[in-house]
């Protein structure tokens, strides 16, 4: 049997720099930072007191209060993003085959805030076990995909992928493959995260993973800059509607781009540190390019994992130079985490959206906050520092790497019929 083709027909986004796709993209191209002092809890005693939070969001404008209170924020974000994407895709729900419509979502952690609140209640109330009956269904990571399927009546494949900061990319890959295999026609995919909480910030601080540039949050996420000092925690998510090509054409759908391949690999090296020579990063890009049936010279843009950590950034760059050779200096590269912060399990979703929109609008969003060159980073690379660049973008690749050594990459192409 031959594989089906898969296209993108809808998108939704809820991010630290915009609560819908158009605002997100406008600010991403304009180089707007989403970082600011933490408002979700009192962070005064924390080493890091800022993050990229979602802003100005009144959940009740999107989800009735009675439903919203049974969802952890990561699920609320998933619902808001997927509602926008479904509206954008414009399905006729009377004719859509709901048995062939699935939800495959990515989340790295799940209901951290819910877990914290319930355990703190237990601790503060004389250790009497009075757990809320909604505690478990709110907290478990698969609740986001469950809620999205209930909301839309999608009865096909339904689950969550978990691979830390590669989670949403793995979700997209699974959705892509199940559609390619004919196991569903349509999938709401993407990912979300809501880890700007006491334990989230405290835990990443303990790993010394977060930037501690408290006097200048908006310049703290500075991938590839000599003075980068860690990542900036972000939250939110994005939804991407994947659809089988003939199914999309039959209903006259708007097509943003085609998904043409994906790669996965594992560092098999260390639970948090990346492989020093970027071996996993090298393999995941190679696997993706080969899976898509491309030559490495076909890649126009890489949206890097580029989290702004001292050891993570150079290993990905080394892998790019090693794999792409001379072409590494001809393509465009950027880390949009310089603006959005790091959405952990949701990162792959908003960065896939960035790749798809780069293809649609033929513009590369920048890596902002570049002040000082790092001698470890080859200046011949075009890292799109500080300003977006217009260029021809036919094919874009998005890299994501997660704690545990998980690497996942996806490739999108301009749709040409």
């Amino acid at each position: 049997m031959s594989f089906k083709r898969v296209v993108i027909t809808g998108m939704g986004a809820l991010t630290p720099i915009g609560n819908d796709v158009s605002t997100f993209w406008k600010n991403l191209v304009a180089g707007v930072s989403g970082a600011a002092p933490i408002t979700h809890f009192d962070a005064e005693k924390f080493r890091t007191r800022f993050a990229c939070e979602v802003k100005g969001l009144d959940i009740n404008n999107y989800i009735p209060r009675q439903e919203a209170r049974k969802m952890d924020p990561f699920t609320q974000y998933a619902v808001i993003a997927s509602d926008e994407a479904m509206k954008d895709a414009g399905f006729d729900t009377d004719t859509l085959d709901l048995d062939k419509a699935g939800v495959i979502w990515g989340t790295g952690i799940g209901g951290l805030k819910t877990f914290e609140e319930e355990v703190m209640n237990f601790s503060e109330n004389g250790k009497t076990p009075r757990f809320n009956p909604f505690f478990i269904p709110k907290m478990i990571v698969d609740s986001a995909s469950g809620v999205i399927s209930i909301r839309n009546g999608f009865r096909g494949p339904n689950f969550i992928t978990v691979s830390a900061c590669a989670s949403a990319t793995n979700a997209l890959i699974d959705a892509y493959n199940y559609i390619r295999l004919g196991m569903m026609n349509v999938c709401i995919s993407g990912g979300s995260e809501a880890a700007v909480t006491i334990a989230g910030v405290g835990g990443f601080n303990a790993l010394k993973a977060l930037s501690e540039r408290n006097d200048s949050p908006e310049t703290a996420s500075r991938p590839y800059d000599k003075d980068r000092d860690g990542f900036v925690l972000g939250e939110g998510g994005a939804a991407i509607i994947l659809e089988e090509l003939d199914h999309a054409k039959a209903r006259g759908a708007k097509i943003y781009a085609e998904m043409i391949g994906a790669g996965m690999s594992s560092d098999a090296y260390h639970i948090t540190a990346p492989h020093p020579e970027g071996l996993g990063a090298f393999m995941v890009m190679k696997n993706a390019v080969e899976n898509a049936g491309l030559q490495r010279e076909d890649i126009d843009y890489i949206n890097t994992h580029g989290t702004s950590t001292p050891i993570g950034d150079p290993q990905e760059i080394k892998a790019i130079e090693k794999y792409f050779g001379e072409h590494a200096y001809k393509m465009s590269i950027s880390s949009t985490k310089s603006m959005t912060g790091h959405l952990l399990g949701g990162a792959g979703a908003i960065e896939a959206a960035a790749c798809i929109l780069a293809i649609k609008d033929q513009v590369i969003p920048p890596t902002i906050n570049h002040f000082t060159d790092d001698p470890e980073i080859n200046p011949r690379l075009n890292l799109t520092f500080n300003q977006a660049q217009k260029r021809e973008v036919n094919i874009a690749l998005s890299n994501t790497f997660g704690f545990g050594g998980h690497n996942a990459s996806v490739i999108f192409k301009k749709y040409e019929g």
Partner: protein
Amino acid sequence: MSAIAERVKQIIVEKLGVEESEVTPEANFQNDLGADSLDTVELIMEFEKEFNLSIPDDQAENIGTVGQAVAYLEENVK
């Protein structure tokens, strides 16, 4: 309406998102007020918290309507 009945009504309005006018003594949490079994467990917990008492499971099973909740609480709240 007793003070207890008024507090019970407020909890139900808050948790189930219903109108005050729907919260009549005869109203059944699940059949009339849109609660599912988890909502009902949560309501019992809220009553326990609000009135600072513990409702044993075998008693909680008999509380299905607004009136039954008020009656139980009026009898047991000290």
